[in-house]
């Protein structure tokens, strides 16, 4: 109030002062007045009592001598006291004896209450004090006196006190305000000052300002000094912090420069490494190409020689040619394995993971294995119980299976047994290959998966592997997230077991899902014509299957009922049907097949010991052969009825820069009944295509000038050639992109390795035959 400032502490101090002093004053005034009132009343009672006593004792004689007049005159002396309203004297019996009234005559005064046991009583009533006293004279009651007084004096006095109290209160408040202003200067001002400085510091972040000391050694001053010290410390730390920050920035700059330099070096080195890697890849690719190409020639021509295509050889020559064949095949396998292994080691082996059933991958492998097994009269059993899709690279899985199965066949003596099992096991599918072979010694089991380790002591000429097969197999399994192990007993056989990751969704994929456009290699076995062999004898089925494979895919049925079911399910390209079967005979089955429109058009070739051709043909048999059937006759008959790719009016365009390879291909294809035309560059190939229609192109990828990829691009740009089948045959190691491109644009991909000739024929038949089928389906 005295200092107009917005600070709340000043206001609060002032308010506090006023409130405290006001409250104290009010309480003390109230107490004083209350006390005064009490003591004043007591004094009034006392005075009145004395007056009553005096009046009483002065009236004793009047009472005793019955002199009311004297008593009244005695009472009239009370006029001197203006506060006395009335007074009276009564006889001991309570009769009024003498009266006095201040206002002159009035109404009769009532009798005062009779005292009981006391000589005096008083009471306040209606603003009046009444005292009643027994007049005692010589220990005997002589009468009663009462005096009544008003309280005007007391009320005057109280009014006066109230006035004084108000005055004192007012004066005190003024004094309190004055004192408060002094206190504000002493207490509030330093705090307000401190608050202002703190505000400046927090607003401006200026730590150099200081609060001014009051000079007194009191708490606010201590507060100010502490605040200043704090500011000092903060200022110092701020400075230190800024210095540290500067240093840090400097260091960061230095480091950044260093990093940039290092980065540049790293970049340089990285590029060198990349170049080295590229060079290695190139080296591997050219190795694979350069080594395989001449080997292919050696293998291919020795095959042709052995088959007697250029003319019959004498026995000695045949033996020599076989030595060449075996030696070169071994060498080729070795090269392939080394390349595989080095790719795995270099981390360049690309896995193309897809989801499929193991049993879908089996037939292809088995078709390769069967001839090997049959040569040694080894029974190959398969037991596929797995219902799960696996998540794996199909090609690599086939490689694994082939390695294990060929090993098993290799180390199993004649008339032995090889089995492949496939079961679900938790999140895995477990595949095991068991043989009844020579077995592996326990100490060898540990090293069997190492590179170039072969089991010693098997001196009986079986030892003809590269020693890399199992090492590669192990790595392939592990790269796909599986594990491989072996258990074996010497002399009794071995069991190799590996696991594959099961795909998470098993139910969504139908069991016989045959994607129409599957990857080239994967699809190669699938579009091979399927022949359903129906026979109740297992050995007969096996024999027929071995005749048909690998040119045809084979499915088997043990009974007529199963045959009907499978025929409807698989839609085979042909059915061989035995007549004499226990449950329902072949003729019934044939009739049923013909009745069902879905199976009515499938060619059915009856194979039977009984000669009932008329019945058979009457029921709709396509052909009728009498058992025992020989392989060429069966194949010829089936070829007659199952559309085969070989077609005279379309030749195969062969594109390869290597004349030896070209000649080998020409020989191979001609032997299989195809017409060929060979060119040695991509440019030439395009010229030929521009002028002449061909059935298919067999294309090498690595050629000088225009390479195979360019040829494919050009061919696919031509509208007329868009559907022309292209088969790629290469020794090149493909990258994922290249493989993807080829699988998209071409119909088959063949690796130039050991058994390519047979596969080539199969693929050609599939591709060309498939195209023809598609065409005829489009026409009809």
């Amino acid at each position, binding site marked *: 109030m005295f200092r107009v400032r917005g600070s709340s502490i000043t206001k609060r101090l002032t308010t506090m002062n006023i409130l405290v002093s006001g409250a104290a004053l009010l309480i003390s005034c109230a107490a004083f007045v209350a006390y005064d009132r009490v003591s004043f009343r007591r004094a009034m009672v006392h005075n009145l009592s004395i007056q009553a006593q005096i009046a009483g004792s*002065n009236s*004793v*004689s*009047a009472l*005793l*001598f*019955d*002199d009311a007049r*004297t008593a009244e005159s*005695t009472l009239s002396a009370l006029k001197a006291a203006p506060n006395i309203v009335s007074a009276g004297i009564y*006889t*001991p*019996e309570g*009769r009024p*004896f003498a009266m006095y009234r201040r206002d002159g005559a009035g109404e009769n005064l009532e009798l005062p209450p009779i005292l009981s046991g006391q000589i005096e009583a008083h009471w306040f009533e209606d603003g009046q004090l009444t005292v009643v006293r027994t007049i005692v*004279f*010589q220990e005997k009651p002589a009468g009663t006196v009462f005096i009544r007084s008003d309280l005007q004096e007391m009320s005057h006095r109280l009014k006066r006190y109230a006035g004084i109290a108000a005055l004192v209160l007012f004066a005190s408040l003024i004094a309190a305000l004055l004192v408060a202003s002094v206190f504000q200067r002493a207490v509030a001002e330093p705090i307000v000052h401190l608050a202002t400085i703190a505000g400046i510091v927090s607003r401006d972040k200026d730590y150099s300002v200081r609060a001014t000391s009051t000079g007194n050694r009191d708490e606010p001053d201590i507060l100010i000094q502490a605040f200043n010290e704090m500011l000092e410390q903060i200022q110092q730390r701020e400075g230190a912090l800024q210095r540290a920050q500067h240093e840090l920035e400097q260091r960061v700059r230095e480091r950044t420069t260093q990093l940039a330099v290092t980065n540049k070096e790293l970049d340089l080195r990285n590029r060198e490494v990349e170049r080295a890697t590229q060079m290695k890849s190139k080296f591997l690719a050219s190795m694979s190409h350069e080594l395989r190409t001449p080997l292919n020639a050696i293998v291919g021509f020795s095959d042709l020689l052995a088959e007697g295509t250029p003319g019959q050889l004498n026995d000695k020559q045949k033996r020599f040619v076989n030595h060449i064949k075996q030696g070169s095949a071994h060498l080729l396998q070795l090269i392939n394995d080394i390349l595989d292994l080095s790719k795995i080691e270099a981390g360049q082996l690309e896995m193309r993971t897809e989801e499929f059933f193991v049993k879908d991958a089996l037939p292809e492998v088995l078709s390769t294995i069967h001839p090997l097994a049959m040569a040694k009269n080894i029974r190959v059993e398969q037991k596929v119980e797995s219902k799960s899709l696996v998540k794996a690279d199909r090609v690599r899985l086939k490689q694994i299976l082939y390695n294990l199965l060929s090993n098993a066949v290799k180390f199993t003596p004649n008339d032995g047994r090889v089995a492949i099992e496939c079961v679900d096991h938790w999140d895995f599918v477990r595949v095991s290959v068991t043989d009844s072979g020579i077995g592996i010694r326990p100490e060898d089991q540990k090293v069997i998966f190492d590179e170039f380790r072969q089991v010693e002591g098997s001196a009986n000429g079986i030892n003809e592997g590269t020693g890399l097969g199992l090492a590669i197999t192990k790595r392939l399994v592990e790269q796909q997230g599986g594990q491989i192990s072996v258990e074996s007993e010497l002399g009794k056989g071995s069991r190799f077991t590996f696991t594959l990751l099961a795909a998470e969704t098993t139910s969504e994929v139908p069991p016989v899902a045959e994607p129409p456009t599957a990857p080239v290699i994967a699809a190669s076995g699938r579009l091979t014509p399927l022949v359903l062999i129906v026979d109740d004898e297992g050995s007969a089925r096996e024999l027929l299957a071995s005749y048909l494979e690998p040119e045809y895919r084979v499915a088997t049925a043990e009974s007529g009922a199963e045959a009907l079911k499978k025929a409807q399910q698989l839609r085979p390209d042909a059915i061989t049907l035995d007549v004499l079967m226990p449950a329902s005979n072949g003729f019934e089955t044939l009739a049923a097949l013909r009745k069902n429109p879905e199976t009515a058009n499938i060619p059915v070739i009856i194979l039977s010991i009984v000669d009932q051709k008329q019945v058979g043909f009457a029921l709709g048999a396509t052909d009728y052969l009498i058992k025992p059937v020989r392989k060429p006759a069966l194949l010829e008959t089936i070829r007659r009825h199952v559309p085969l790719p070989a077609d005279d009016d379309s030749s195969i365009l062969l594109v390869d820069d290597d004349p030896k390879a070209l000649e080998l291909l020409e020989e191979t294809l001609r032997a299989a009944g195809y017409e060929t035309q060979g060119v040695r560059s991509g440019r030439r190939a395009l010229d030929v295509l521009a002028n002449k229609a061909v059935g298919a192109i067999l294309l090498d990828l690595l050629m000088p000038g225009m390479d195979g990829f360019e040829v494919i691009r050009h061919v696919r740009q031509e509208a007329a050639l868009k559907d022309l089948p292209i088969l790629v045959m290469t020794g090149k190691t493909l990258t994922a992109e290249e493989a993807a491109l080829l699988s998209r644009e071409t119909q088959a991909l063949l690796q130039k390795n050991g058994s390519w000739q047979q596969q080539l024929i199969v693929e050609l038949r599939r591709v060309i035959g498939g195209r023809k089928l598609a065409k005829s389906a489009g026409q009809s």
Partner: protein
Amino acid sequence: MISGCAANSLQCARPRRAAGSRRVHLSQLMALVVAWLAMGASCLHAQQSSPTENQVKSAYLYNFGKFVEWPAKGVTGGEFFTFCVLGDDSFSSTLETTIAGESINGKKVLAKRVAKPQDAVSCRILFISSSEQSRLKEIVAALEDTSVLTVSDMPQFTRRGGMIQFVVEANRVRFEVNLTNAERAGLTLSSQLLKVAIDVKRSAQPGS
């Protein structure tokens, strides 16, 4: 007023268990006296007996003993406060009944008849009956140099050497005082007593 009379009569009639019969007697008497004086005859007819003049005078006589101081030397009678009556026998008996059992200043009161003034020397208060009017001079002379308070209802008593004289005025018993005579006897009359006296004489010729 009838109810007031009834109340008074009831109160008067109520026996006081703690008090002796004589004491009751005086209280009753006093009450009767006052009642009679204040209320008049209309009320008094209800009382068993209205106070006679002699009874009132006896009570006054007794009261005088309370308002008078006797000199220490001149007091005789030992432990008794003696009231003496000279003359009329009837008053003497009334007095005796009235003050029986009372005491003044711790001394028991005693009433007795005296035949001659010389016998009254040992009395504190001497009532001289009107019958002794003729020999008043002799009596006063006989009591000279004693501290006996002389009271009488004979006319001119205070003029003739007496100290307190009863006067009946408007049916009420009053009294007048000759202070000089009392002081000569060494008596101190209380101002209270003088206050209610109808006349206080100061100058008087002794013996006149």
